[in-house]
């Protein structure tokens, strides 16, 4: 799930001022941003109150089903075409992908209302942790299912670094060093690591990624 957090309100206000917006439409997202408690109905209503307190008119609002889904978002926007007509700008409470989908669906200025921070695991209700950065060249097979790319603050494949002390991480001192954890879990499973992990292939993560399952020719449309 994409974890988002509220964006600094002053930046949002400045964005709206820049285009001279007086009336704003707010768009939330029913998936990640709802679970993150940043772009569901309560947050959209809170944004509405903030906007109004700051002297903006709110032309309307909606919580789309999945903001990053182009077809769905276009439908949502069509549903609210009348209200959107009255708005000078759209504020989107979703991840950056959702903001771009909305921007693609309407000609008016569209602004992000949140900051997208990471791909998060839901540890329990309202607690999210980053465990994967989608590097395109997964090492979990070698690391007992613990990702050093993401959970070691330095992203080292072979550790621990010189800052590890008493099994704790140099940077996040209240946490166990990822490499100590990997070592322990491998040992518990009676596995050892043979040799150092090779440098990462960063070309596996060329930007922008794209997968097209409709492609019939060639390799079958795997990630590139």
């Amino acid at each position: 799930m994409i974890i988002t957090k509220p964006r600094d309100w002053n930046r949002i206000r400045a964005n709206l001022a820049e285009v001279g917006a007086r009336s704003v439409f707010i768009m939330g997202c029913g998936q990640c941003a709802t679970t993150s408690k940043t772009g569901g109905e309560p947050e959209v209503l809170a944004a509405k109150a903030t906007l109004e307190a700051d002297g903006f008119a709110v032309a309307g609002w909606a919580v789309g089903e999945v903001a990053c889904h182009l077809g769905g978002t276009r439908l949502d926007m069509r549903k609210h075409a009348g209200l959107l007509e009255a708005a000078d700008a759209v504020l989107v409470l979703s991840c950056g992908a959702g903001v771009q989908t909305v921007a693609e669906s309407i000609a008016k200025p569209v602004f992000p209302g949140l900051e997208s921070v990471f791909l998060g695991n839901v540890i329990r209700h309202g607690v999210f942790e980053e465990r994967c950065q989608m590097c395109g060249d997964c090492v979990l097979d070698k690391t007992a299912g613990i990702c050093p790319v993401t959970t070691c603050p330095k992203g080292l494949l072979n550790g621990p670094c010189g800052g590890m002390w008493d099994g704790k991480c140099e940077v996040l001192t209240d946490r166990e060093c990822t490499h100590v954890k990997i070592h322990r879990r491998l040992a518990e499973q009676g596995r050892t690591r043979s040799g150092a992990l090779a440098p990462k292939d960063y070309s596996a993560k060329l930007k922008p990624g794209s997968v097209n399952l409709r492609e019939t020719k060639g390799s079958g449309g795997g990630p590139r």
Partner: protein
Amino acid sequence: MSRFRDTLVRGEFVVTGEVAPPHGTDYSAMRESVRKLAPLCHALNVTDNQGATLHLSSLAASKVVLDSGGGCEPIFQQTCRDRNRLALQSDLLAAWTLGLENVLVVTGDDPRGGDHPKCKGVFDLDSTQLIEVTASLNAGIDMNGSKLDGGTGFYIGGALFPEAEPWEIQMERALGKIEAGAEFFQTQAITDIDKFARTVEALRPTGVKIIAGVLLLKSPRVVRFINENLAGLMIPDHIADRIARAEKPLEEAIALATEQVRELAQIADGIHIMPLGADDAVGRILEGAGIPTPNA
């Protein structure tokens, strides 16, 4: 060929020191350090943006040490934090071209603890991987497997942390670095001689040379600073108390370091002295411990 390497390979006890490049371009203070330490040391480490704070590059500063003469060689440091694999290899080729023959490869502190906390830590390679790459440059081949028009001949070192627990993981890590091509280690400051001894024992069969770190704990304030701010090092209470209770902390620190050097000399292949600015104390420590100085 690296005289530092030759000395270690001959089995002679070595002394290494450390100088910090300036935060700017005026390296007169560093040169003053070099002037004091070079006669006492076989080699001087030249740190690379230590503590993730901006300094003149280790490459330029190592060249300054090399040119200062006197037979003391620089140990060029390379951290993985600041450069990607192209820049690292390019700097290593540059270093060799400039005549630098010893390199110490380290991971580097996290940028969030330095003076540019908003910067992007690179860590394209980790220290084990960079050691392997350096060994490959020595073989005349770049990381891509292409033959170089002239390779390098570095004496390659890594960092070793005998006191950080879990110790077994440290040993596995050290063996990984040796397998990758590390020929010598310099350690974090040693405060527990037994832990150091068992580390040397464990690594002895590999033939790697181990240079033990000694830190001059100049004052109670320095001890506090280390314990609160430096990753990977803890000064134990009995040592901290000894410095804290001393009437003249600097004298006590010199006495303590002298004792440590004397003990470590029985076990290690050399010592790495970090005087934290009190360069004048180094000669006294070595003399007190009965260590001959190479270039005096």
